[in-house]
């Protein structure tokens, strides 16, 4: 039977010391709201013979649960919980879209432990915080034994549950540039609370006299990763933001997605609703 081990380092030096032993599989633990149910399932039913021992490393003592700002950017620590982000004044002022998205993530008692870093590293194509981070051009900071590196949100995900992060790299911070435009988020779930997205989307729009100057659109739960919708963006750029133009541009999303049938919805249905959710996200971004 597979053995389980637990470490809770309070400094990166200790963390990297623990990581030197590569005889065991490593799992970084933030809030645990995704990992712990998987662990429960593994212990209850999945056979665990021939699996390496699992070392669970708790990241919550590394002091990564802060939100700070400077003139041009906001820096969110990876183990900041969704509830902490939701109540933070800097986020309220600079990125209300994140609060809008978080309001629709699970329910209160899950948001009290779930972290933004966990939502990112979990790399679910349906992660509700990710489309907003992608359209805000967020940068993720990874730290490993060899040092830190920054990766743009749009290049971070490589597939369901997969990212560019190496096994010994920890996501430490999320950096978001302060923008002059406004972003919106919309989600379709099977019910209002505690539900995974059938389709979710975020839009970032900068405009002058109702003419779109910059558009960044991202849609989730319809491809192996959250995707940027270049065709929708191109159709919006330079156009007046009328209902008709937004509708026409949103329709283009179907060319850029590859949804599958799953427990939440069929691929057919996702293709039908993706343009609607994209349109609503754009509309939310221009209401202000």
């Amino acid at each position, binding site marked *: 039977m597979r*053995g*389980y*081990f*637990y470490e*809770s380092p309070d400094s990166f030096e200790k963390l990297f010391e623990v990581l030197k032993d590569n005889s065991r599989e490593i799992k970084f*633990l933030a*809030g*645990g*709201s995704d990992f*712990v*149910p998987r*662990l*429960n*399932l593994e*212990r*209850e039913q999945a056979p665990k013979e021939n699996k390496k021992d*699992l070392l*669970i490393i*708790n990241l*919550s003592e590394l002091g990564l649960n802060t939100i700070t700002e400077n003139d041009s950017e906001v820096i969110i620590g990876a183990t900041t919980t969704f*509830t902490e982000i939701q109540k933070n004044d800097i986020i309220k002022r600079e990125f209300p879209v994140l609060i809008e998205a978080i309001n629709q993530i*699970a*329910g*209160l*008692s*899950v948001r*009290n*432990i779930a972290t933004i870093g966990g939502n990112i590293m979990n790399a679910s194509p349906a992660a509700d915080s990710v489309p907003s981070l992608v359209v805000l051009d967020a940068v993720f900071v990874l730290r490993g034994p060899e040092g830190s590196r920054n990766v743009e949100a749009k290049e971070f995900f490589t597939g369901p549950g997969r990212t560019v992060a190496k096994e010994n790299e920890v996501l430490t911070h999320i950096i978001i540039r302060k923008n002059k435009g406004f972003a919106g988020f919309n989600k379709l779930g099977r019910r*209002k*609370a*505690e539900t995974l997205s059938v389709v979710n989307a975020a839009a970032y729009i900068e405009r002058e006299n109702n003419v779109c100057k910059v558009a960044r659109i991202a849609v989730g739960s319809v491809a192996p990763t959250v995707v940027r919708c270049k065709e929708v963006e191109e159709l919006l750029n330079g156009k007046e933001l009328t209902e008709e133009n937004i509708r026409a541009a949103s329709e283009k999303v179907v060319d850029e997605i590859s949804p599958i049938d799953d427990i939440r919805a069929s691929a057919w249905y996702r293709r039908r609703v993706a343009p609607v959710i994209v349109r609503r996200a754009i509309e939310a971004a221009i209401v202000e």
Partner: protein
Amino acid sequence: MSEILSFYLNGNPVEVLVKPEQTLLEVLRDDLGLTSPKCGCNHGDCGACTVILDGKAVKSCLVLAPTVKGKKVITADGLCSGEKLHPIQQAFLDYGAPQCGYCTPGMVMAATAFLLENPKPTREEIKEALSGNLCRCAGYDKYVEAVLAVSNGEFGLLPEGSDINV
């Protein structure tokens, strides 16, 4: 590899031997014998295992036991003082909110933590706060009514300065 975990449970310091892979729910029920948190789905969906961890409602099946080291955990067992029920418990009783009762301890904890942070909520806010707690008898309306009654002071003041206010 088991290790000794120490934390505060309903105001009392406890030490218990836990395995790294155990959840807080398992430790509370199986090792410490407090069966008020229920194991409904063991997946973070149903809310029957809700407890208050450092002042916030959390689903104890989602919390890895070793991570509560030094923290304060409150279960429904820790709410009443002697024979006297907590206002939330009394309100649920008087409004006939529990039917089969399985979801009730979780509802009690979610509602208590919520009222401590938001003593004068609207009906919508209460619904949202309890949205992570499923009741298959569909007693939702009565739960919301009861919480509303407590927030209106019908059941007296919420106890302050207790272990819940960490």
